[in-house]
């Protein structure tokens, strides 16, 4: 496989979820901070809510690694 396409595919696999995670966290962060100001006991929920969108970029990272390794193996 063309290494350029492979690299582009891996970059897109992590880049797009990273943008999506960033956007989601930019919405959750202020809401969580505002909630914590009123109810500090919600800190656990806030941490979990902030960590949830990270699943996207983490799975994106896994897919990118697999593209690179599989491509490397084939090439």
């Amino acid at each position: 496989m063309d290494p350029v396409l492979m690299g582009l595919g891996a970059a897109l696999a992590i880049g797009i979820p990273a943008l999506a995670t960033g956007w989601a966290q930019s919405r959750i962060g202020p809401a969580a901070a505002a909630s914590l100001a009123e109810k500090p006991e919600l800190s656990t929920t806030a941490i979990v809510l902030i960590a949830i969108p990270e699943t996207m970029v983490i799975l994106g990272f896994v897919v990118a690694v697999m593209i690179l390794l599989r491509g490397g193996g084939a090439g």
Partner: protein
Amino acid sequence: MIVRMTRVRIAGPPEPLERVLAIIQDLGVLHLTRPPVQPAPAAPRSRSGRERRHVQRLLADADAVVALLKLAGPTSERAPAPPESILRTARQLRGLRRQAEANAQAITRLEDERALLLRYREFHDAFKALLGHELTWPDGRAFYVVLRAGAAGAASELKGSLERAVGREFELLTHALSSGETAVLLLTSAAVAPQVSSLLAESRVQELPAPAGLGQTQLLRAVPALTARLAAIPAELATLRAERATLAAQWADRVSTLRAWLHDRLLMLDARGEVLSGTHLFVLEGWLPDPAFDGLASRLTQEVGAELVVERVGAERWWRQDAPVALKNPALFRPFELFTRMVPLPKYGSIDPTPFVAVFFPMFFGLMLGDVGYGLALAGLAVVLRWKSAAGTKLRAVSAIAGASAGFSIVFGLVFGELFGTLGHHLGLRPLGFDREKATIAFLALTVALGLVHVLLGLVLAVINAWRSGHSRMAMGRGVTLVMIALSAVALLAAFELLPAPFFAPAVVAVLVAFPILIALEGIVAVIELLATFGHILSYARIMALGTASLMLAVVANEMVGAFGSVIVGVLFALLFHLVNFAIGLFSPTLHALRLHYVEFFGKFYSPGGTAYRPLAHWRPSLQGG
């Protein structure tokens, strides 16, 4: 595990009620709850209401004295003795509060005065050159202005405005202060002073108030008095602080004991609100750990008398209704109760997840950090935390969790052959298992397999929970989900030739057969839950992702040594980068290991909504937060 509770009922004539409550408070094991009886029409409770108001007022005085005199908490662990005379104590406490307040106000006033005089002295030092010179307008007025840091052009703007308004009837002198602010001294003739004053007000330039109490309104002439006053203040402050120390030494023990007794009294008044009491009888009910019943019953009957009835309420009458929840785990697992307490407590009769968290949390953490070097650094941090913390505190629990996580990090570091990333390879460290850098797919498979085990364990607990609480249909539904997921895993392993091929067809057929059973048991929503469960298992891939990322950052840090030309600079950058990676390596694995527990694992079986077990006991400062 959740401590098994017994519901207790105590009844007797109303006269010894105070004594009964005092014994219960001494023992500190009974969580009071209002008997499930229709209360009589609200009786006037003005007496206890009045007493509560008095106690709260006294407590406010005692708290104020403790804060003003900076007193330490009670040193004795024994129950505080009541004061000999409440009225006399209240009067003494009020007087002491007034004395302490007057002392604190005098100290604050002196400190404020000193700060202001120091500000004037700054002015004086800035414009010392004017001293001894003849002023242009000896009877004129001086304005003292401080321009904030960064307002560099403001002084020239002010000068321009003043020239336009009053011509040459002023002198403006500026001096930059060490704080970055600009001191401005404005001298004007008496005739234009009002005009200048209003111009300053319009320009929102704030003046320092004229020095008070020095007998001079002109700062430059008041300097000798100012210096003398500044020299006198420390002695006055020392006298006031000595007065405060004497008061504190005189009253520390008495106020601390009184404060503890007042808190105890408030707890007792709260407890009285939970007791049904009439002219001939009182009845109170509560919960206590099963083994503590005999101790309570024998002490009450011994000290109060046989007219008191202390009995267990039959378990069949209350089973799992509203029993409070107390967690009790072996010492090894106890620190991990911290994580269980971060979410609402589990319901009584359900499963306490602490032992499972204690096993899986450090394991996930260790898999992510997986480095001997970082593990040793974390172990060092854990030792410091343990050394700095007192027994039973949150910090002590954190130190134990850090210690366990460090242990797993070191073990997995040996499995992966990592010491500060790949640095260990140069020192002869070889992986006992596999190299995370090269065997990425194997690492991914390991983490997803671990996820499968964790989620299946969650489903097993869900089956037990549902069965115990009498929801047999739900238990069967969860059981079928569990079987379907296990069979799907078998089918996948057979498809990837990790299990013999003959396993594939029976596993797929069994999944297809189980599917309609699941829908029949739990409805169509079970399909969505099943798919979500597969998603949850894949979510454990984050362990591999974070672990690989941590390793890559460590590799980058090591490569910095040769990247800067100078070895010393390279080593410094490498150390800095390792430090950053270590900080990330503490935060991210903690966050994601917690998330895997709270979302993926707890989501399967956890039943929140338990009431915390809070027995009536003597007040301790450490229990203030509840």
